[in-house]
């Protein structure tokens, strides 16, 4: 028994060497994933998209400090993002006009401090309530700040916002930050630092108590913690990192305007975090990357990509609330047993009918769109390069057939997947 105690305590204090290597190895791999891609994909679009991903990752991770870690659902997180951007822009302009030696890499920190200041101010009021009331309050405060942007024109610049020039600050090592690739590496560096800091936060006493308050705020009171104060602190730290993301955005776009506060901005970070998976640290990272990618790519394919987004979100809320990260981690026991292939085969069987069904749904949506708002442009359209007329029965019949047929076939594969899972799980777990 004593032996078991010391071994366990040892594990708690000094993890075994393979675990340490895995831990640092993961961070090195992440760093590589930031450094390498721009050397491979050199186009302007790619660089812009990767920069946007970096900003979104920081923003989404800060949001998950509230949602996944502390159980706080906020509909107005863009407030701290936007305020961070404004503080960054004003600081940059002040440095330019006064000639102060402020290098650009420090600016996101200014954004973070701006976000933090207002998180303290608003957080003190917001965290008086929890749950649904907190969510509604966050919505109200977001409206308050967004509307104030048009009233306080001197700070917020009215409808046009406030612009700046990132190349005119003090240059270190002769880096002007004019070219997109230099901005990308700045964003990537900050993103990596923020990821490490936010991850470490989850492992601090406060971070752990955030989880406790999420799971059972009543019980947390009886182990000596004030749940409201825990939530307030989490809110402040989250506001800081949201402000950093805002500062990075201000540098990237060289402008801060009221769109930063918009409901769309708050909604998108919620969608990204949830779709990625709020139960795991790397969930929002995946979500931010996926959503950024889809936003850029899908908008070329269809004008109503936001509708597909919303439908994806609802589907995931209903059927896969654990998000992409959760779905991946669900397969970890199978990975340990080297039994993934069994299930993969079943998935491969289910994929075609599912795609057919989805194609049918997309067809209906696109046709409806064509016949309503775009009616002026006539009923002729193409779908995956197939031309047809949207107001003719054959098109609708085809769509109906795709949906119904696809669903029936898809449904037939469900027992096959279930059986594959049972088969895979029955395999003995391999020794670690």
């Amino acid at each position, binding site marked *: 028994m004593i032996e078991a105690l010391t071994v366990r305590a040892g594990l708690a204090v000094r993890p075994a060497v393979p675990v340490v290597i895995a831990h640092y190895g993961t961070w090195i791999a992440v760093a590589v994933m930031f450094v390498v891609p721009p050397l491979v994909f050199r186009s302007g679009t790619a660089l812009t998209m990767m920069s946007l991903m970096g900003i979104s990752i920081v923003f989404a991770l800060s949001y998950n400090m509230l949602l996944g870690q502390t159980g706080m659902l906020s*509909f107005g997180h863009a407030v701290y993002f936007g305020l961070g951007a404004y503080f960054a822009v004003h600081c940059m302009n002040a440095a330019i006009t006064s000639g102060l030696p402020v290098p650009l890499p420090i600016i996101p920190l200014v954004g973070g401090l701006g976000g933090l200041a207002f998180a303290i101010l608003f957080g003190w009021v917001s965290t008086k309530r929890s749950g649904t009331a907190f969510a*509604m*309050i966050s919505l109200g*405060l977001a409206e308050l700040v967004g509307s104030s942007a048009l009233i306080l024109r001197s700070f917020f610049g009215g409808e046009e916002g406030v612009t700046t020039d990132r190349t005119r600050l003090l240059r270190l090592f002769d880096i002007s930050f004019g070219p997109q690739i230099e901005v990308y590496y700045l964003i990537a560096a900050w993103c990596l630092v923020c990821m490490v800091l936010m991850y470490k936060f989850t492992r601090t006493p406060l971070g752990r108590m955030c989880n406790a308050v999420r799971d059972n705020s009543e019980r947390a009171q009886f182990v000596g913690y004030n749940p409201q104060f825990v939530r307030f602190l989490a809110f402040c730290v989250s506001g800081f990192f949201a402000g950093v993301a805002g500062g990075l955005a201000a540098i990237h776009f060289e402008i801060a305007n009221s769109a930063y506060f918009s409901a769309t901005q708050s909604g998108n970070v919620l969608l990204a975090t949830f779709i990625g998976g709020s139960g795991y640290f790397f969930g929002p990272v995946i979500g931010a990357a996926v959503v950024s990618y889809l936003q850029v790519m899908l908008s070329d394919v269809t004008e109503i990509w936001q*509708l597909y987004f919303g439908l994806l979100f609802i589907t995931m*809320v209903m059927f896969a609330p654990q998000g992409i990260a959760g779905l991946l981690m669900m397969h970890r026991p199978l990975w340990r047993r080297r039994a993934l292939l069994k299930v993969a085969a079943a998935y491969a069987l289910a994929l075609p009918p599912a795609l057919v069904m989805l194609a049918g749904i997309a067809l209906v949506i696109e046709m*409806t*769109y064509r016949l*309503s*708002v775009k009616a002026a442009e006539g009923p002729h359209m193409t779908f995956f390069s197939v031309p047809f007329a949207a107001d003719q029965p054959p098109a609708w019949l085809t769509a109906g057939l795709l949906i119904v047929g696809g669903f029936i076939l898809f449904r037939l594969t469900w027992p096959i997947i279930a059986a594959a899972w049972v088969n895979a799980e029955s395999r003995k777990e391999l020794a670690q």
Partner: protein
Amino acid sequence: MLELVIISILNGVQFGMLLFLMASGLTLIFSMMGVLNFAHASFYMLGAFFGFQIARWLGFWPALLIAPALVGIIGALVERYGLRNVHRQGHVPELLFTFGLAYVIEEVVQMIWGKAPVDFRVPALLDFPAFTIFTTNYPAYKLLMLLTSAGIFLVLFIVLTRTRIGLVIQAALSHPHMVAHLGHNVPLVFMSVFGVGSALAAIAGVIAGPALVTQSNMAGLLGPILFVVVVVGGLGSLAGAFAASLLIGLVQTFAVSVNTSLADVFAFAHVTPSPGSILGDLWTVTLAQIAPILPYLLLVMVLILKPTGLWGTRET
């Protein structure tokens, strides 16, 4: 001056009643099912657009009956096939589901009717001034709005307090589990309440559509105010929702007509903060300009002074 006050009171009460028409449905749904329906304002918007479309085909009066019924059915279906499945996952997923629903409804409305306002006109039958107060004409249509809201409240009040189903609903408001144990078909009650609540929001949409602007951002504009109403009134309290609706309706209507700023008030002191600063902005902004954010300032004040809301009974 008196004319302005009377007109503002009439308009304020009318706006407040419109808010309460929606807030009552929202409160009923929240009290019974524990979920705050983020898509409630979206049902209001659907009511307005369905009303507009049906009015174009069949006329305003059929639209007034058909559109809310359609939206009510949609609401019931949403509860039956969507919300009920998410319900067992907890409150946060429920709220997320209704949030996603609001998002999708807005996109669908934009897809079908576009982003510009649609021409939802007051029916010709009512397009005349009902009476004149001093020099201002009070449109008959607004009188209809007032009468419809009042009529619906009366019906609601009678149903809730004098009928058997009303008693069941009142019981389920405070003790939903107990009501289920007593053998009432709670899922059916839930579906009905959700459907009726949505229909109420849709009625508000149909009658508000011609008076206010019918546009795809309607839900986004009215939604936050609606949620402020329920939080300020106290989540789960119908009386609180009523009082808060009237309060916010009156405050906003009165504020919009006041074109004075701090600078005007303190003009005698000859104090002028520099125009390009934040203080300068605050000094010269008129009450009318900040009218849209007054509800949110009220929210912050209530949160500081009485966090559970003015009539608050339940903590979420």
